[in-house]
């Protein structure tokens, strides 16, 4: 069906994320259902409570999981199938840094993805140095990752993804582990950089710089909008929920 193909290409001439009736089930339990999301905003935010399906969505978008229903196109491509395209198109920062780290040393961890993008050893080494220098951490080059603090590990993961310069950067709670100075520098950097962002958080304050936001609740998108409308509504609802019930008394 070449017509559809052409239509599709036209729609994605500008970079776009298109999820159509996306569903994901594990062991017959729906984690995501009926998620339809079309956006070509430069910075997309996804907000939602614990367990609402944000990380699952991130992994689907990065092509790491296959949807059990519906379809996903990033820039017109199916990244689950086409892993080669995926590498240049998306980079994902996992929520738990320990789930992302593969290698024992910082430099190896950062170089790994670069080598897979086709850089040769020397080129990769140069890029590793550059990233470390940019974050003012050249002394981490040979540091064993297991000896870093959790926030420091998080930063290593961030550097490894940024070094690959993907067109779309999927960040799953990137700020949860980082201290204020690092967070601020990173935010400015991301703002300037030439990548599209999909930023996931349960913390509305993190998402204020986004252009378009989606509110995920129990596996469904329940609202969509700019930060100035959606975030106050989300925050109000969260505070309402938080004040609703006291934890029953634990003394019993």
């Amino acid at each position: 069906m070449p017509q559809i193909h052409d239509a599709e290409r036209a729609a994605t001439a500008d970079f776009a994320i298109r999820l159509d009736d996306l569903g994901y089930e594990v062991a017959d339990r729906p984690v995501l259902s009926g998620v339809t999301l079309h956006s070509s905003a430069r910075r997309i935010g996804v907000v939602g409570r614990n367990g609402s399906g944000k990380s699952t969505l991130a992994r689907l978008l990065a092509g790491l999981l296959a949807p059990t229903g519906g379809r996903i196109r990033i820039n017109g491509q199916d990244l689950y199938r086409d892993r080669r395209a995926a590498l240049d198109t998306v980079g994902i920062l996992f929520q738990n840094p320990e789930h992302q780290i593969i290698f024992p040393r910082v430099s190896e961890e950062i170089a790994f993805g670069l080598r897979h993008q086709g850089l040769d050893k020397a080129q990769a080494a140069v890029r590793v140095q550059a990233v470390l220098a940019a974050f003012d951490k050249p002394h981490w080059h040979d540091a064993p990752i297991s000896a870093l603090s959790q926030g420091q590990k998080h930063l290593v993961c961030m550097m490894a993804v940024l070094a690959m310069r993907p067109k779309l950067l999927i960040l799953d709670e990137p700020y949860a582990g980082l201290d204020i100075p690092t967070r601020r520098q990173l935010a400015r950097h991301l703002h300037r950089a030439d990548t599209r962002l999909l930023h996931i958080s349960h913390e509305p304050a993190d998402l204020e710089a986004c252009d378009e936001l989606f509110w995920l609740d129990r596996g469904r998108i329940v609202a969509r909008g700019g930060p100035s409308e959606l975030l106050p509504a989300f925050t109000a609802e969260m505070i309402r929920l938080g004040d609703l019930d006291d934890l029953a008394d634990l003394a019993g």
Partner: protein
Amino acid sequence: MISLTSPVETRAHRWPAGLKLGALCVVSTVLFVAGGIAANGIALAAVLALYAAPGPAFLRAGLRSLRVVLPFVVLLLGWHGLTGDLRQGVLITLRMVTLVALANLVTMTTPLQDLVALIHRLTAPLRRLGLRTGALEIAIPLVVRFTPVLVQRAETLAEAWRARSRRRPGWHLVLPLTLQAMDDADHVGEALRARGGALAPWEQE
């Protein structure tokens, strides 16, 4: 034992990995097949000299990593002492310590990537036969990565156990350890996929 990393950059870091591994192979084979007590003793002294060459920090790190073989030394010597074959015991012990020290030395001074590149060259003939060797090149560093992780996992679990129990964990940790290791494999699998794991970039060169 193979999570060894050197505290300082040594000249040996820049030697070709193939040379270092080749030498290790030759030395271990020769010592196994032909070495007596004298030859093994000289070999051990030579290895220790190599450890001392880059300076005291390196020597200390190296000796610390050798501590793991200490129980074996005691055990081997004890056993052979009991069976009345102390000579044989001394020989086996010497050879073991020498080889472990030498292998550790290679590991400490060889970045994993060099090892992988070496495997790539060694498996070139297989690729010419049409076999895909990409998986192998990823699997080898992964084994090197997982071995210390398993040990560390056990330590982390033991700490979590001690935080809520005054008894020693012991064998109770075997099942959680296995389950966590399987989960770790899943996470690493996903992390590999996220950054191009199965694509085997080295075949492009």
